[in-house]
């Protein structure tokens, strides 16, 4: 290698090192995400090249080598200035005899190493530090349903949205979101600048994350889990079955937004008529769907297995449940079909069968009411004056006696079949053994031994009903006696026994029967205001809420936010508009959507006038033109 080649090679090494160094400087500055984009990195790289500009000059390289290698004793400079010097051989020998590689390598290393260290510093120290302290503008990489548009100078945080397990939706990680959408019940964990944990509420909500005096407003926008949609295709319509036999085909289809766990047919069979109905519930063909989104339900219902009687009604519907484990999660259900077994003699369902007023309804004070009165009296034993206490106890005794006689009349009527209970009056007035007296009266009225039947436990329906009624009658008599001697507390067990006996009688059969409804024609003019006025008081009406108040409030809040913008309080305006958006999400989605666009514009520093104008139009609607001018413009 000649001296000239050596100089060129050295210059080449150094130039490449300088270029590499400047490139590294460029990327190091770029890594800091400066506000001016590529300008600052370019300027940095140019500056680095300027500092090292000497490496591109042959003379500078020669002088630099001379300065770094004193042993050359200007041989290199002399050769560079005068290659044909007569001392050329001596100079070349001196130059070629000197090892310049360590010096060049050291210089090249410095030119590359320093920028490399700078790059490492920015990447591994400065940038994480800045990321922690500031949010770079180009970091908004959140999914489309989230917004991550924090302004510069805000601290970074992360939100992890964990959907409920049943939904099988993947966990989302959002960087610096200001709005989070998710399924109701999703868990949201904030980390980084804020440390918090929330559950996605049922209604949109704005939460304020706070840490070290810094606040961040985040809106939570829930997405509800829809109940499965169920369509019952068979039976296709309500029908009347001529006989309770055969097979009814059942079919239904189910769809759900997340996944169906199970579906089934639900059946209620109602038997009876008038006031007495019995119900049977059954679930048919429960099918597990394994979280699929669609399910077809089919089954066959054999009517002869249901032990149906004429007049019975089968209510059928299909029901499905999704995997939502929440207690208030709603099952989806189809429309209900009714299948009625034909009953001989029945006419159209519109025909009305009426019931007569209940017998016990004629009694002003029932057994339960008497118990309540007695219990109340018993608690007043210390507070009430003795004469008043005794008087009240006797009053209840009188009412108890009245009720006992009513029950006695019912028993008498049922035992004898006679409506007129006049013969029983004397027996009911017996104060020593009224039950025996009543049975004797019944015997004498029918010529049969009713008491004997009772004792023998006949299973005649009449007797079966009357046995508990007689027990009630007896217990009432005991209670009446206790109340008469001012022992209300001791009367209570008998009163309750009477009530229990009445309930048993009711379980055997309702005490009233249906009959044809009378055709009633009201003469309004005759009866008008003929009722007793006692108890009527002038009433006060309370006003109902205004439907426009919420709208006016929203308009006012929107105007305030615009005023904040006009006064350059942009962050306050953004917060106000964000809260307004949360408020409007459920009932004014168009307004909420327009506000979202406006907030995004403001956050990213764009002109938000157009989006705010759209938001206002969505909030207030179009101006109404052509209001009446002839009558003051209203």
């Amino acid at each position, binding site marked *: 290698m000649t001296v000239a080649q050596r100089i060129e090679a050295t210059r080449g090494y150094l130039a490449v090192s300088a270029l590499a160094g400047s490139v590294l400087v460029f990327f190091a500055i770029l890594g800091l995400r400066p506000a001016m984009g590529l300008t600052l990195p370019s300027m940095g790289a140019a500056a680095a090249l300027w500092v090292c500009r000497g490496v591109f000059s042959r003379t500078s390289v020669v002088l630099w080598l001379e300065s770094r290698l004193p042993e050359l004793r200007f041989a290199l400079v002399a050769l560079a200035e005068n290659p044909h010097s007569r001392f050329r051989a001596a100079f070349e020998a001196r130059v070629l005899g000197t090892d310049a590689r360590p010096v060049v390598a050291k210089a090249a290393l410095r030119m590359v190493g320093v920028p490399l260290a700078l790059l490492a510093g920015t990447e591994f120290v400065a940038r994480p530090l800045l990321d922690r302290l500031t949010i770079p503008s180009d970091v908004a990489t959140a999914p489309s349903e989230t917004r991550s548009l924090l302004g510069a100078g805000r601290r970074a945080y992360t939100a992890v949205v964990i959907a409920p397990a049943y939904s099988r939706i993947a966990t989302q990680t959002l960087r610096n979101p200001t709005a989070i959408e998710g399924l109701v019940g999703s868990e949201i964990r904030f980390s980084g600048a804020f440390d918090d944990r929330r559950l996605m509420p049922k209604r949109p909500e704005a939460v304020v994350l706070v840490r070290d005096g810094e606040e961040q407003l985040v809106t939570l926008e829930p997405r509800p889990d829809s109940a499965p949609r169920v369509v019952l295709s068979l039976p296709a319509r*309500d029908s009347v079955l001529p006989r309770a036999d055969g097979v009814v085909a059942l079919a239904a289809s189910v769809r759900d937004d997340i996944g169906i766990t199970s579906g089934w047919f639900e059946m*209620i069979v*109602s038997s009876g008529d008038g*006031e007495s*109905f019995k*119900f049977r*519930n059954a679930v048919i063909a429960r099918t597990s769907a394994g979280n699929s989104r669609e399910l077809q339900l089919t089954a066959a219902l054999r009517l002869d297995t249901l032990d149906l009687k004429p007049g019975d*009604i089968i*209510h059928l*519907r299909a029901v499905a449940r999704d995997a939502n484990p929440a207690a208030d999660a*709603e099952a989806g259900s189809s*429309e*209900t079909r*009714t299948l009625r077994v034909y009953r001989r003699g029945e006419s159209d*369902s*519109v025909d*009305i*069968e*009426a*019931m*007569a*007023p*209940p017998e*016990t*309804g*004629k*009694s*002003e004070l*029932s*057994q*339960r*009411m008497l118990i309540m009165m007695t219990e109340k009296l018993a608690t007043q034993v210390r507070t009430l004056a003795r004469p008043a206490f005794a008087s009240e106890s006797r009053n209840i005794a009188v009412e108890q006696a009245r009720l006992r006689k009513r029950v006695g009349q019912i028993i008498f009527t049922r035992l004898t079949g006679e409506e007129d209970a006049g013969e029983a009056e004397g027996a009911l007035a017996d104060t020593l053994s009224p039950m025996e007296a009543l049975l004797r009266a019944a015997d004498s009225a029918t010529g049969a031994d009713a008491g004997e039947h009772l004792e023998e436990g006949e299973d005649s329906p009449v007797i079966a009903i009357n046995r508990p009624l007689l027990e009630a009658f007896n217990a009432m008599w005991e209670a009446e006696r206790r109340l008469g001697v001012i022992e209300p507390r001791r009367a209570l067990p008998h009163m309750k026994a009477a*009530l229990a006996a*009445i*309930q048993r009688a*009711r379980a055997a059969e*309702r005490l009233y029967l249906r009959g044809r*409804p009378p055709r*009633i*024609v*009201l*003469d*309004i003019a005759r*009866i*008008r*205001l*003929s*009722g007793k*006025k006692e*108890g*009527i*008081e002038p*009433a*006060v*009406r*309370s*006003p*109902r*809420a205004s*439907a426009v108040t919420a709208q006016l409030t929203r308009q006012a809040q929107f105007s305030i936010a615009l005023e904040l913008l006009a006064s350059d309080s942009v962050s306050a305006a953004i917060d106000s508009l964000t809260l307004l958006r949360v408020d409007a999400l459920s009932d004014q989605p168009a307004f909420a959507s327009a506000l979202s666009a406006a907030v995004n514009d403001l956050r990213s520093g764009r002109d938000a006038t157009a989006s705010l104008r759209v938001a206002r139009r969505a909030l207030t609607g179009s101006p109404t033109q052509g209001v009446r001018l002839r009558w003051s413009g209203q």
Partner: protein
Amino acid sequence: MTHEAPSTKHQARSEFVWATAQYESGDWDSAPLVGINLTDSVARYTSIKVSASPMIVALSSSDILRYPFLFLTGHLPVRFTEAERANVRAYVDRGGFLFVDDHNHDIDGVFHKTATEELRRTCGALNDLPNNHELYSTMFRFPDGPPTTSHELNGWGDNLVHKNLQAVIVNGRVAVLYSSKDYSSEWGYHPESKRFMAIDNTRFGVNVVVYALTR
């Protein structure tokens, strides 16, 4: 949803008509005398213009919108069809008053279970109505809340004395009134029978009607 002019005489005046809701799933006609009896009571105690003929109106028909007061009762399951559900929703939204009574008086019975489920789906949550609500003082005063019925005092049905009625409140007023007290039985008698009563037990029904007409 629009509606044609009614052809009945009820169009002549804005009079109160007791309308019973006819729904497809159950025995909507189980208390046929309640309407005439309460009509009689409204005439006896008030000067409100009232139609002498109660009406029956299909819940699936938009005719229900002609009658801002509707009475619904029965023993059997209450499961609205889609048309019934849409009508009831519109009815309540526009200011109608739906009075539902469990003729079974049984909170374990199918009427209660199905009707409350259906009302919740259609109109919103049923909540206990406080016993100092305007409903109890709008005409006659009931300081203890809803009057008891002989059926609950005698232990029919669920053997409970229900302390409260339930209601769906819309815009601060009762839109749906739900009773487990079996007023259908309590009020289901010939109006002339009132003369045998020391205290007319339909007075609370008058309150319900006056509330519906003035709130």
